[in-house]
């Protein structure tokens, strides 16, 4: 038998693919007394070595498969850590900023009420027939109310999204923020508070989409934050660099 044929025969025998006839052939080569002891021993050793080679190849295959799995687990863990490190330090300051912003708005509203609205209402009491003034006061009150209400909507959305993100519900947090952003009217940098809120919401949405592995959307949102050129610009740029090239 040629060496190549013998190797093929051993392969099929060891891999459990040998026919009954081939199995008998192997048994004969291992134990036929008509063959010399040297030949039988040589065949046995060759078979043992071929089995070790096959096992070594299979061990390599399994090892590579487990290493790929480990790499996948590490990548998943690292994604979580990246997001956690970038979200965690922001949550507290953002929270504080919201409270600060809400407090400042409340103070501003009280100030407006005391300094602007109250004297005008007082004036109204004295000049009850001044229809023009009535209209002016009404407008100012309505504007103040709208401004406060608008601020509350955005702040509430950010607070709610933060809570949802902390509980791990990034999908719902994203929905809340998307809805709040839709309700926001056109915002310009002149309106500092609304501008800052919009930026906060876009940035939080970017974090939510990273957590959901929607990196195409994340890139779009982060680019928008970078282009707004305010508070989260550096962090957004850092995140953009980190997700660069990932799918």
């Amino acid at each position, binding site marked *: 038998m040629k060496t190549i044929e013998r*190797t093929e025969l051993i392969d099929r025998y060891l891999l459990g693919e040998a026919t009954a006839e081939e199995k008998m052939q192997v048994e004969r080569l291992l134990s036929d007394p008509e063959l010399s002891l040297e030949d039988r021993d040589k065949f046995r050793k060759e078979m043992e*070595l*071929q089995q*070790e*080679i096959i096992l070594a*190849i*299979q061990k390599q*295959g399994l090892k590579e498969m*487990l290493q790929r799995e480990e790499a996948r687990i590490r990548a998943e863990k690292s994604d979580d850590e990246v997001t956690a490190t970038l979200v965690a330090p922001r949550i507290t300051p953002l929270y504080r900023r919201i409270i600060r912003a809400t407090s400042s708005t409340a103070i501003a509203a009280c100030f407006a009420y005391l300094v602007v609205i109250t004297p005008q209402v007082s004036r109204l009491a004295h000049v009850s027939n001044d229809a023009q003034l009535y209209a002016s006061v009404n407008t100012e009150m309505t504007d103040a109310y709208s401004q406060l209400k608008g601020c509350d909507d955005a702040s509430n959305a950010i607070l709610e999204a933060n809570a949802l993100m902390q509980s791990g519900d990034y999908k719902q947090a994203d929905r809340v923020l998307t809805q709040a952003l839709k309700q926001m009217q056109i915002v310009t940098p002149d309106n500092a508070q609304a501008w800052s809120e919009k930026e906060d919401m876009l940035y939080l949405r970017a974090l939510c989409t990273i957590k959901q592995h929607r990196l195409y959307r994340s890139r779009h949102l982060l680019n928008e934050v970078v282009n707004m050129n305010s508070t989260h610009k550096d962090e957004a740029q850092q995140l953009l660099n980190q997700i660069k090239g990932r799918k």
Partner: protein
Amino acid sequence: MTDKEYIQAFRRNEQSVITAFYTQNKERFITHIGRKFHILDRDTLFDVYQDSIWRLWRIIQQGKLTEEKLTSSLVAYLQEGIGENVMLETLRKQKESLANDEQLRLLEDELDDIDDVIAQEERIETIRQTISNMGKPCSPLLKLFYWEKLSWEVIANQLGYSNADTAKTQKYKCIQKLKALFR
């Protein structure tokens, strides 16, 4: 999945199921072996776990463990039947570095029985490292045939051989090369 289903999946070499089993039981295994042998080094425990998964795969593939032969849970078998032995082998190999002589003395009886296993595993490991360093064409060719169990037509197509016979001849040359190295 039941233990029976896992054994079937290991036998059929269903890679997604094997990796899922690997991931699910890793921490439990590492904690069990770490506590039992007072081992804190996570890298050592991790190597022992991967080696144990390899032994489990091999035992099932060789038909030494079947659904009928399994008397405990598959995880218990992995931890106690395989993992503890692999850990003992590792300790045997590292015995010079073991600080606690008493612990080693207590293990000696068990360790004597596993010298042969160590010798065979070490030989397989040496061949594995050689194959891993062989590179093209042997390493990928042998892997596709013996691990992925692909047909010669598919292997020839994937690796750019003109036909199945050419790929088969190349495999023969690689095997002969390895046999010459380890004869």
